[in-house]
Protein backbone atom coordinates (compact mmCIF):
# COMPACT_ATOMS: atom_id res chain seq x y z
CA UNK A 1 0.00 0.00 0.00
CA UNK A 2 1.28 3.51 -0.78
CA UNK A 3 2.09 6.03 1.93
CA UNK A 4 -1.04 7.95 0.90
CA UNK A 5 -3.17 4.86 1.61
CA UNK A 6 -1.48 4.16 4.94
CA UNK A 7 -1.87 7.76 6.04
CA UNK A 8 -5.51 7.80 4.99
CA UNK A 9 -6.13 4.63 7.02
CA UNK A 10 -4.48 6.22 10.08
CA UNK A 11 -6.62 9.35 9.61
CA UNK A 12 -9.79 7.27 9.33
CA UNK A 13 -9.02 5.25 12.47
CA UNK A 14 -8.09 8.40 14.41
CA UNK A 15 -11.30 10.10 13.24
CA UNK A 16 -13.45 7.26 14.56
CA UNK A 17 -11.44 7.26 17.77
CA UNK A 18 -11.76 11.05 18.15
CA UNK A 19 -15.52 10.92 17.52
CA UNK A 20 -15.91 8.22 20.14
CA UNK A 21 -13.70 10.10 22.60
CA UNK A 22 -15.39 13.48 22.09
CA UNK A 23 -18.84 11.90 22.49
CA UNK A 24 -17.68 10.62 25.87
CA UNK A 25 -16.45 13.97 27.21
CA UNK A 26 -12.99 13.99 25.62
CA UNK A 27 -13.05 17.76 25.22
CA UNK A 28 -13.28 18.19 28.98
CA UNK A 29 -10.40 15.77 29.44
CA UNK A 30 -8.18 18.12 27.41
CA UNK A 31 -8.84 20.66 30.19
CA UNK A 32 -7.66 18.08 32.70
CA UNK A 33 -4.50 17.56 30.66
CA UNK A 34 -3.79 21.31 30.71
CA UNK A 35 -4.40 21.47 34.45
CA UNK A 36 -1.87 18.66 34.87
CA UNK A 37 0.78 20.77 33.15
CA UNK A 38 0.24 24.13 34.82
CA UNK A 39 0.13 24.60 38.58
CA UNK A 40 -1.48 28.00 39.10
CA UNK A 41 -1.22 29.78 42.43
CA UNK A 42 -4.75 29.85 43.84
CA UNK A 43 -5.85 33.05 45.60
CA UNK A 44 -7.06 32.68 49.16
CA UNK A 45 -10.47 34.11 48.32
CA UNK A 46 -11.53 30.91 46.58
CA UNK A 47 -11.56 32.08 42.94
CA UNK A 48 -11.54 28.92 40.81
CA UNK A 49 -8.41 27.92 38.94
CA UNK A 50 -7.97 25.11 36.44
CA UNK A 51 -6.78 22.94 39.34
CA UNK A 52 -10.11 23.28 41.12
CA UNK A 53 -12.04 20.93 38.82
CA UNK A 54 -12.78 23.84 36.53
CA UNK A 55 -15.19 22.04 34.25
CA UNK A 56 -17.14 20.34 37.03
CA UNK A 57 -17.69 23.60 38.92
CA UNK A 58 -18.52 25.68 35.85
CA UNK A 59 -21.30 23.36 34.62
CA UNK A 60 -24.83 24.38 35.68
Amino acid at each position, binding site marked *: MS*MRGVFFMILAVLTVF*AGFDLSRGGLQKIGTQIS*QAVILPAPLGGTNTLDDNWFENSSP
Partner: protein
Amino acid sequence: MRSRYWSLLKKEFSASKSSFILLLFLIIIWDLFLLTRQNVWDKTLIFGLSMTPIIILPFYALVSGFFSFREEWQKKTICFQLSLPVRGVTLTSVKLLVVLIETVIFITIVFTGGMIFGKNVLPAPIPIQGSIQIGLILAMVTLVLTTMSQFAYLAGRLFHRFRWLISIWVFLLTGWGISRFSGYLAISLSWIPDVQLNGWLLSGVWQYLGENSSPLTIGIRGPVLAAWLFSYLIIFLIGSWFLEKYIEI
Protein backbone atom coordinates in the same frame (compact mmCIF):
# COMPACT_ATOMS: atom_id res chain seq x y z
CA MET B 1 26.29 22.58 4.30
CA ARG B 2 26.26 25.59 6.60
CA SER B 3 26.43 28.03 3.68
CA ARG B 4 23.54 26.20 2.00
CA TYR B 5 21.48 26.49 5.18
CA TRP B 6 22.37 30.17 5.41
CA SER B 7 21.37 30.84 1.80
CA LEU B 8 18.06 29.01 2.33
CA LEU B 9 17.50 31.11 5.44
CA LYS B 10 18.18 34.33 3.52
CA LYS B 11 15.79 33.27 0.76
CA GLU B 12 13.11 32.47 3.32
CA PHE B 13 13.59 35.83 5.03
CA SER B 14 13.23 37.72 1.80
CA ALA B 15 10.06 35.74 0.98
CA SER B 16 8.32 36.67 4.22
CA LYS B 17 9.89 40.14 4.52
CA SER B 18 7.01 42.21 3.13
CA SER B 19 4.23 40.70 5.27
CA PHE B 20 6.38 40.85 8.41
CA ILE B 21 7.41 44.47 7.88
CA LEU B 22 3.76 45.38 7.30
CA LEU B 23 2.86 43.69 10.60
CA LEU B 24 5.57 45.56 12.52
CA PHE B 25 4.55 48.81 10.86
CA LEU B 26 0.94 48.29 12.02
CA ILE B 27 2.08 47.65 15.61
CA ILE B 28 4.19 50.81 15.64
CA ILE B 29 1.29 52.83 14.18
CA TRP B 30 -0.96 51.34 16.89
CA ASP B 31 1.50 52.36 19.65
CA LEU B 32 1.85 55.86 18.19
CA PHE B 33 -1.94 56.17 18.11
CA LEU B 34 -2.11 55.12 21.78
CA LEU B 35 0.58 57.69 22.56
CA THR B 36 -1.70 60.43 21.20
CA ARG B 37 -4.55 59.15 23.44
CA GLN B 38 -2.50 59.24 26.66
CA ASN B 39 -4.15 62.32 28.08
CA VAL B 40 -7.62 61.41 26.82
CA TRP B 41 -8.14 57.73 27.68
CA ASP B 42 -7.65 55.83 30.92
CA LYS B 43 -3.97 54.92 31.36
CA THR B 44 -4.73 51.31 32.41
CA LEU B 45 -6.83 50.88 29.28
CA ILE B 46 -3.98 52.22 27.14
CA PHE B 47 -1.54 49.78 28.80
CA GLY B 48 -3.94 46.91 28.12
CA LEU B 49 -4.49 47.98 24.52
CA SER B 50 -0.74 48.29 23.92
CA MET B 51 -0.40 44.55 24.68
CA THR B 52 -3.31 43.45 22.47
CA PRO B 53 -1.19 42.88 19.30
CA ILE B 54 0.02 39.70 21.06
CA ILE B 55 -3.36 38.21 20.08
CA ILE B 56 -2.19 38.26 16.45
CA LEU B 57 0.74 35.96 17.23
CA PRO B 58 -1.08 32.57 17.19
CA PHE B 59 -2.85 33.50 13.95
CA TYR B 60 0.43 34.64 12.43
CA ALA B 61 1.99 31.29 13.41
CA LEU B 62 -0.87 29.34 11.83
CA VAL B 63 -0.81 31.34 8.62
CA SER B 64 3.00 31.22 8.36
CA GLY B 65 3.07 27.43 8.65
CA PHE B 66 0.50 26.99 5.90
CA PHE B 67 1.40 29.78 3.51
CA SER B 68 5.18 29.52 3.59
CA PHE B 69 4.83 26.13 1.90
CA ARG B 70 1.82 27.07 -0.22
CA GLU B 71 3.81 29.89 -1.77
CA GLU B 72 6.54 27.45 -2.77
CA TRP B 73 4.00 25.47 -4.77
CA GLN B 74 2.33 28.54 -6.22
CA LYS B 75 5.61 30.04 -7.41
CA LYS B 76 6.82 26.55 -8.40
CA THR B 77 10.00 27.06 -6.37
CA ILE B 78 9.34 23.77 -4.58
CA CYS B 79 10.90 21.92 -7.57
CA PHE B 80 14.14 23.80 -6.98
CA GLN B 81 13.98 23.29 -3.20
CA LEU B 82 13.43 19.54 -3.46
CA SER B 83 16.17 19.18 -6.05
CA LEU B 84 18.74 20.58 -3.61
CA PRO B 85 20.94 18.00 -1.91
CA VAL B 86 19.46 18.73 1.52
CA ARG B 87 17.25 16.73 3.86
CA GLY B 88 13.56 17.51 4.22
CA VAL B 89 14.19 18.46 7.83
CA THR B 90 16.54 21.24 6.64
CA LEU B 91 13.80 22.79 4.50
CA THR B 92 11.17 22.61 7.25
CA SER B 93 13.54 23.79 10.00
CA VAL B 94 14.57 26.84 7.95
CA LYS B 95 10.94 27.92 7.74
CA LEU B 96 10.45 27.26 11.43
CA LEU B 97 13.57 29.23 12.35
CA VAL B 98 12.37 32.24 10.32
CA VAL B 99 9.02 32.19 12.15
CA LEU B 100 10.87 31.94 15.48
CA ILE B 101 13.13 34.93 14.71
CA GLU B 102 10.15 36.98 13.52
CA THR B 103 8.26 36.02 16.69
CA VAL B 104 11.11 37.19 18.92
CA ILE B 105 11.23 40.57 17.10
CA PHE B 106 7.44 40.84 17.28
CA ILE B 107 7.31 40.07 21.04
CA THR B 108 10.18 42.47 21.76
CA ILE B 109 8.41 45.35 20.01
CA VAL B 110 5.04 44.66 21.67
CA PHE B 111 6.62 44.28 25.13
CA THR B 112 8.68 47.45 24.68
CA GLY B 113 5.46 49.33 23.92
CA GLY B 114 3.81 47.68 26.94
CA MET B 115 6.70 48.64 29.23
CA ILE B 116 6.57 52.27 28.07
CA PHE B 117 2.81 52.56 28.65
CA GLY B 118 2.96 50.41 31.82
CA LYS B 119 5.36 52.87 33.52
CA ASN B 120 2.48 55.19 34.41
CA VAL B 121 0.11 52.45 35.51
CA LEU B 122 1.93 49.63 37.27
CA PRO B 123 3.02 50.01 40.92
CA ALA B 124 6.38 48.40 40.09
CA PRO B 125 8.20 48.02 36.77
CA ILE B 126 7.60 44.76 34.90
CA PRO B 127 10.33 42.31 36.01
CA ILE B 128 12.73 41.47 33.19
CA GLN B 129 12.82 37.80 34.24
CA GLY B 130 9.01 37.57 34.08
CA SER B 131 8.94 39.27 30.64
CA ILE B 132 11.56 36.88 29.28
CA GLN B 133 9.61 33.90 30.61
CA ILE B 134 6.36 35.09 29.04
CA GLY B 135 8.24 35.78 25.81
CA LEU B 136 9.63 32.23 25.86
CA ILE B 137 6.19 30.74 26.44
CA LEU B 138 4.74 32.79 23.57
CA ALA B 139 7.63 31.75 21.30
CA MET B 140 7.02 28.12 22.26
CA VAL B 141 3.30 28.39 21.49
CA THR B 142 4.14 30.00 18.14
CA LEU B 143 6.57 27.22 17.25
CA VAL B 144 4.08 24.54 18.22
CA LEU B 145 1.30 26.09 16.13
CA THR B 146 3.61 26.60 13.15
CA THR B 147 4.77 22.98 13.39
CA MET B 148 1.15 21.79 13.44
CA SER B 149 0.10 23.90 10.47
CA GLN B 150 3.25 22.91 8.52
CA PHE B 151 2.52 19.25 9.16
CA ALA B 152 -1.14 19.65 8.22
CA TYR B 153 -0.26 21.36 4.93
CA LEU B 154 2.37 18.76 4.01
CA ALA B 155 -0.01 15.91 4.92
CA GLY B 156 -2.66 17.47 2.66
CA ARG B 157 -0.07 17.54 -0.15
CA LEU B 158 0.12 13.74 -0.04
CA PHE B 159 -3.31 13.66 -1.69
CA HIS B 160 -4.49 14.81 -5.11
CA ARG B 161 -7.99 15.92 -4.12
CA PHE B 162 -9.62 17.69 -1.14
CA ARG B 163 -6.19 18.92 0.01
CA TRP B 164 -7.52 21.84 2.06
CA LEU B 165 -10.14 19.71 3.72
CA ILE B 166 -7.58 17.05 4.60
CA SER B 167 -5.15 19.68 5.91
CA ILE B 168 -7.76 21.17 8.21
CA TRP B 169 -8.80 17.71 9.35
CA VAL B 170 -5.19 16.66 10.03
CA PHE B 171 -4.64 19.90 11.98
CA LEU B 172 -7.64 19.27 14.23
CA LEU B 173 -6.82 15.60 14.73
CA THR B 174 -3.18 16.36 15.56
CA GLY B 175 -4.19 18.95 18.15
CA TRP B 176 -6.70 16.57 19.69
CA GLY B 177 -4.36 13.58 19.66
CA ILE B 178 -1.38 15.36 21.19
CA SER B 179 -3.30 17.16 23.90
CA ARG B 180 -5.18 13.98 24.76
CA PHE B 181 -2.48 11.32 24.68
CA SER B 182 0.90 12.97 25.25
CA GLY B 183 0.20 12.49 28.98
CA TYR B 184 1.05 8.79 28.60
CA LEU B 185 4.50 9.81 27.37
CA ALA B 186 4.94 11.99 30.47
CA ILE B 187 5.09 8.87 32.66
CA SER B 188 8.38 7.82 31.10
CA LEU B 189 9.74 11.39 31.36
CA SER B 190 9.08 11.71 35.09
CA TRP B 191 12.81 12.34 35.76
CA ILE B 192 12.48 15.84 34.21
CA PRO B 193 12.17 18.45 37.00
CA ASP B 194 9.29 20.92 37.30
CA VAL B 195 9.80 24.56 36.30
CA GLN B 196 8.92 27.59 38.42
CA LEU B 197 7.85 30.71 36.55
CA ASN B 198 7.60 34.25 37.83
CA GLY B 199 3.86 34.80 38.31
CA TRP B 200 3.85 38.62 38.32
CA LEU B 201 1.17 38.81 35.64
CA LEU B 202 -1.19 36.46 37.48
CA SER B 203 -0.45 38.10 40.84
CA GLY B 204 -1.29 41.43 39.20
CA VAL B 205 -4.67 40.02 38.11
CA TRP B 206 -5.37 38.66 41.61
CA GLN B 207 -4.36 42.00 43.17
CA TYR B 208 -6.68 43.79 40.75
CA LEU B 209 -9.44 41.45 42.01
CA GLY B 210 -8.58 42.35 45.62
CA GLU B 211 -6.33 39.43 46.60
CA ASN B 212 -2.89 40.44 47.83
CA SER B 213 -1.69 37.23 49.42
CA SER B 214 -1.28 34.81 46.53
CA PRO B 215 2.17 33.30 45.90
CA LEU B 216 4.29 34.77 43.12
CA THR B 217 5.19 31.60 41.23
CA ILE B 218 3.48 29.49 38.59
CA GLY B 219 4.57 25.87 38.40
CA ILE B 220 4.95 24.01 35.13
CA ARG B 221 5.16 20.23 35.37
CA GLY B 222 8.35 19.37 33.51
CA PRO B 223 7.40 15.84 32.36
CA VAL B 224 4.04 16.96 30.90
CA LEU B 225 5.59 19.93 29.09
CA ALA B 226 8.44 17.76 27.79
CA ALA B 227 5.93 15.14 26.58
CA TRP B 228 4.02 17.82 24.65
CA LEU B 229 7.15 19.23 23.09
CA PHE B 230 8.45 15.76 22.24
CA SER B 231 5.14 14.94 20.52
CA TYR B 232 5.40 18.10 18.41
CA LEU B 233 9.00 17.22 17.56
CA ILE B 234 7.77 13.84 16.25
CA ILE B 235 5.09 15.60 14.19
CA PHE B 236 7.74 17.96 12.80
CA LEU B 237 10.00 15.05 11.83
CA ILE B 238 7.14 13.13 10.18
CA GLY B 239 6.23 16.25 8.17
CA SER B 240 9.85 16.64 7.07
CA TRP B 241 9.97 12.97 6.10
CA PHE B 242 6.80 13.36 4.00
CA LEU B 243 8.37 16.34 2.23
CA GLU B 244 11.59 14.49 1.49
CA LYS B 245 10.20 11.14 0.42
CA TYR B 246 6.54 11.12 -0.52
CA ILE B 247 5.28 14.48 -1.68
CA GLU B 248 4.79 14.75 -5.42
CA ILE B 249 5.32 18.10 -7.10
